[in-house]
């Protein structure tokens, strides 16, 4: 795996696939801005310790969530894992629903019952995220089974980290989806770490996750997860092939988590040494948001001023949503037993 040059993978993408049109490129960028600004704002506010819920911020990995979500059809469904804010937001989950959930309020998407790792935005096709590794990989396969049984052309997408590929449930799910040629897209965000553990303690030398899935007869592709255009193209192509009955597909998106595994800090801020600042900086240079913005300007699809305007606009929206979240009511203890059975 050539982490130094993930861009080369993207090159290959571009050459083999048509560029998304201007509107799509702009939509992708605006979604990136929304997700990034939302996460950054929440992360900084998290330091006030008023959000009592262990939180895994997705800053740096937004292009995967955005690229895939924007390629999905309205009635496709998405599932996610513990690092789920990006996917929830990119699929259209409301900022208030997320912020209020972190603040433990009634306006939270799970009304203060789920917390950061248990989000839902069913109306937007974001079914759920869950905190146990690999769980929602199997669940997405089940939704795909339902779609196939009903002859619908819907696809189930499941987002997870590369550590989920260490859990047996991943292979049981892969095997099953492949046997029945189910309409499911497996989206692996390989950010090189599981908590503080690098890949080499979790995978044999020379491992290629795509090779594993191919051995289960599941077509796969490794792409640059920081290039939203490449992700969108790969996802669009994959989803089309799946919808045509081509069976499940797997995308390994190479990306990088900027902040600590759980919580708002940067690892170097708190003296963690499992990865060094230089590595972080090299990946920050590949920032998916900046990169998408530069692309728009270079291709004459937007001006720097427009980028700034959009940035300002979304920040206002976010500020309002967060204010609403903090103003939202606390759940009434009398409702403790609601929704048990």
């Amino acid at each position: 795996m050539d982490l130094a040059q993930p861009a080369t993978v993207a090159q290959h993408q571009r050459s083999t696939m048509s560029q998304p049109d201007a509107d799509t490129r702009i939509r992708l960028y605006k979604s990136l801005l929304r997700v990034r600004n939302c996460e950054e704002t929440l992360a900084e506010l998290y330091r006030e310790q008023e959000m009592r819920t262990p939180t895994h911020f997705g800053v740096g990995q937004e292009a995967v969530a955005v690229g895939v979500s924007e390629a999905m059809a309205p009635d496709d469904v998405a599932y996610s894992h513990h690092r789920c804010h990006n996917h929830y937001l990119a699929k259209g989950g409301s900022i208030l629903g997320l912020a209020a959930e972190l603040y433990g309020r009634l306006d939270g998407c799970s009304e203060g019952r789920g917390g950061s790792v248990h989000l839902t935005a069913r109306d937007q096709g974001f079914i759920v995220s869950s905190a146990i590794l690999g769980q929602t990989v199997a669940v997405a396969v089940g939704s795909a089974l339902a779609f196939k049984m009903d002859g619908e052309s819907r696809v189930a997408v499941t987002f997870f980290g590369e550590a989920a590929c260490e859990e047996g449930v991943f292979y049981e799910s892969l095997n099953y989806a492949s046997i029945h040629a189910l309409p499911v897209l497996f989206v692996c965000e390989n950010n090189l770490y599981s908590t503080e553990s690098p890949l080499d303690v979790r995978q044999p030398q020379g491992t290629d996750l795509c090779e594993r899935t191919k051995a289960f007869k599941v077509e796969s592709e490794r792409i640059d997860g920081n290039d939203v255009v490449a992700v969108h193209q790969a996802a669009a192509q994959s989803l089309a092939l799946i919808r045509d009955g081509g069976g499940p597909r797997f995308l390994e998106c190479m990306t990088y988590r900027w902040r600590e595994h759980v919580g708002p800090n940067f690892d170097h801020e708190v003296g963690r040494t499992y990865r060094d600042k230089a590595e972080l900086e090299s990946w920050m240079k590949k920032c998916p948001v900046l990169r998408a913005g530069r692309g728009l300007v270079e291709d004459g699809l937007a001006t720097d001023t427009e980028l700034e305007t959009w940035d300002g606009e979304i920040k206002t929206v976010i500020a309002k949503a967060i204010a609403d979240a903090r103003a939202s009511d606390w759940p009434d203890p009398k409702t403790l037993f609601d929704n048990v059975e």
Partner: protein
Amino acid sequence: MRELKYSQALSEGLVQAMDRDPGIFVTGIAVDYPSGIFGSTIEANQRFGPERIFDAPAMENALTGIAIGAAAMGKRPVIVHPRNDFMFLAFDQLINLAAKWKYMYAGNAGTVPIVVRAVIGKGWGQGATHSQSLHAPLAHFPGLTVMMPAFPMDAKGLTLAALQSDGPVVILEHRALYDTLGDVPEDAEPTPVGQARVVREGTDVTIVATSFMAYESVHAADELEKKGISAELIDPRTIRPLDTATILASVRKTGRLIIADTSWEMCGFASEVAALAAEQAFESLKAPVRRICFADCPAPVSQPLEAAFYPTASTIAAAAMVMLGRDGGSMDGIDREDGFKGPY
């Protein structure tokens, strides 16, 4: 009313439910075999075919997650474990997700009405990993409905109830009961969930017994009657939710409580019912409660060890005699021999 075997009742309940609800499908190891899970899926397989009854690889954990994901999209999946012991592999999906789904997302992600059928093994030396009964751990964690049909009418009724439930349900069926006969109504009448069956009324002692032990208790009650002891026999039918009202009313009436369960004592269902009485019917109790459970060791294989491991009708009857101060002489004579020879 016509009589059916427990296995036929399971089958009829499944077929009637599938007839009404096209969203129901059945999968798991061996569900589409000609032998159809000891007969219980044969008719459904013939009636509804491979679209709705299909085999699965050995993948307990993911299959449970797959059922959850299908249920989240509006299906009513039924997955079957030929032995409930295999379900340990699925405890994460079952307890960490299915059981908590409605609650964790405050109902905003919908519900996941999956039905897990799992068979309890017993006899013919099935041994330590093929004859456990997982209802206590499953009921310990809020969110699952846990059913244990003991009689054919409830094998059908609880199957129908499970297939109308809003949330995840586990039905623990007892292999040793599959060939037992009993009255079963023809129409599709679900057994009310959370309502125990008073199998017979009595005044001297309350016997709360689950699954196969309820079957044994009927025999024990017959023998006790001959000795002039009137036992009230209660089959809880659902472990969670538990019908505490019926149990407490009976204990308040008889003042004596014996609980016979198909598993171990420690943190088991027998302890739950004993605790319930000690907490909420204490003033009515005339004697110490008595728990009748597996011997406190893994299930052995060899016949004399199996015989020592499993409590039977005579264990229950003898306990009642002692509790009522009657000569506690062995009642071994009353036990029927275990004729089970498979298929497992």
